[in-house]
């Protein structure tokens, strides 16, 4: 029988980037051998990811660590999530994500998607080079709580504003929160075109969306 040290061990192994050790702890939880609830294990993963975010923002960790810790968290959540939805907790909600038209960069978008899934969101990935209409229709179709746009080219940044206008035209702007990220964008730009938030990195993005849910 595992002790209530499981959450700490889960956190430690994830933060040591040890996939096997993390999955061993998850396995205990899944089999009911650990002295913790699934929710506590999920919270431990979320706490670990907060630390990952701080390490990345502080320059202590780099993209490789960010990606791999995201992968470990995703593997853990793949086993933990099904147990959650059959119990008390439900997925946190849906996020629709895509890279704007004309832009094919997808590393950042994919990292954000991985983290969103680990955090318990359902994600609809529209891919890269996504035309305005596709973003707008996806909001109609999936009724997400947030729409995420990634944009790395200054020249395509006007697409972000066009999507927001498109949402307004369809009468959907106040039904979805818009969050944007990517190398070409800034906080100021995001505000100017009328999005609700700019995220300098994926983990900040998740934090912002979680705060929206809480409020």
């Amino acid at each position, binding site marked *: 029988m595992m002790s209530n040290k499981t959450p700490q061990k889960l956190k430690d192994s994830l933060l040591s980037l040890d*996939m096997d050790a993390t999955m061993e702890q998850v396995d205990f939880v899944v089999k009911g051998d650990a002295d913790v609830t699934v929710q506590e294990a999920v919270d431990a993963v979320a706490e670990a990811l907060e630390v990952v975010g701080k390490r990345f923002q502080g320059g202590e960790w*780099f993209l490789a660590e960010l990606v791999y810790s995201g*992968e470990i968290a995703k593997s853990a959540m793949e086993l933990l999530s099904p147990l959650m939805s059959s119990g008390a907790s439900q997925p946190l909600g849906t996020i629709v994500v895509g890279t704007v038209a004309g832009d094919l960069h997808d590393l950042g978008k994919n990292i954000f998607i991985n983290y969103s899934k680990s955090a318990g969101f359902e994600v609809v990935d529209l891919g890269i080079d996504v035309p305005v209409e596709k973003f707008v229709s996806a909001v109609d179709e999936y009724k997400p709580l947030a729409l995420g746009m990634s944009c790395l080219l200054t020249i395509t940044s006007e697409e972000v504003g066009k999507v927001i206008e498109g949402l307004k035209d369809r009468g959907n702007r106040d039904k979805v929160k818009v969050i944007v990220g990517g190398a070409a964008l800034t906080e100021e730009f995001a505000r100017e075109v009328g999005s609700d938030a700019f995220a300098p990195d994926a983990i900040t993005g998740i934090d912002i969306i979680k705060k929206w849910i809480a409020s």
Partner: protein
Amino acid sequence: MDFKQRIMTAMNHEEPDQVPVMGLIMDPSTVNQIMGKEPVDFVAMIKNPDTKDSIKDMMNQDEFWNSTYQSNWNDALESSLKLGFDANWTIYAFMQLVEDSESSLGLVWHDVFGRVWEMGSDNKGNLILNYSRPLCPTEEAWEAWVEEKAPIFEKAIEYATDFHKKLVDDYGDRIMPIGCAAPGIFENCWQPIGFVEFTKFTFQKPGFVKRVIDFYTDYYLKYLEGVMRSGVEVVLGGDDLAQKTGPMMSPEMTEKLFGESYRHIAEAVHKRDRKFIFHSCGNIYPLLDKFIEWGFDGIITMEPTAGVELGKVREHVGHKLVLIGNLDVSYLLVKGSRQEIEDAVKRAIKDAASGGGYILSAAHSHPYVDPSRLEWMVEAVHKYGKYPISI
């Protein structure tokens, strides 16, 4: 001084007659504007069922591919000459058109290395090609690819050598072609596999990752020999090691995985008495010491949109590295005013040119870079870049 003496003097950290200017001209949209040519709407021809198959057959003939590719680069160097550049980068690629149901056009390009390139058009209808996904996401797929494509790998070196030789022969007396070696070792390791998978493998399958790195290092060194045999005197290695906020991998991890490869490259170039300059986008501050340690002669890019400032880089590296860059392509060379461009040129010269060791250029190629703004840039260099610098 002629263009070559100017570049080589700067490469040796001495003051030439004036600050040299290098072009990163390659995008068809820029080239067509300068040459007064109409865009060829390649994507429309692919979309048209009547022309799709014949285009595919034609492009997949090595000879046709190479002659089309060569003539595009002839135009790029002609454009660069028109604008008054002392040097321009030259990049060879070998690709084949392949049916692909995942792509909206039904056809994509595969390069030698295991990468898929999607086609698109810019706002004027010019063709744009961009790496979009990997072809070898597993160890087995990678091994199979490398085995199956072995003959093409060898052929590509031959073609790259011929390509550079023709450019040196035809243009070498008027402008310096800065020949690019094979795609960077870091990029070439992750792009055929995918960044997420490659990162996973570095933690989970270090033996496989080492095999991949050794394979591409070996290949890179052979390719590099070919490029140098062609007569190119300065070789450019392009390898994006960083993104906006910093290196993709920590400097320690980059050193552990790739340090030896980079050292070998610099040694191979120096053995032939050539110079090696290195291009990486992104925030490269944490890697500057590595670039010096690995033996690079210079760095090109220093991306302003990732917060990289010429003055700060010079302060950090002194004259241990030649600096080439870093005029902004997100706004300045796309929409900037003449005054803004002049100010940026003056600032770059002030920050990096004293004592030589500086070549002015755009930070990157970009299809939307405006030729008249490049012209203003060159004019400003000629106006303010005379040695001794008096800004």
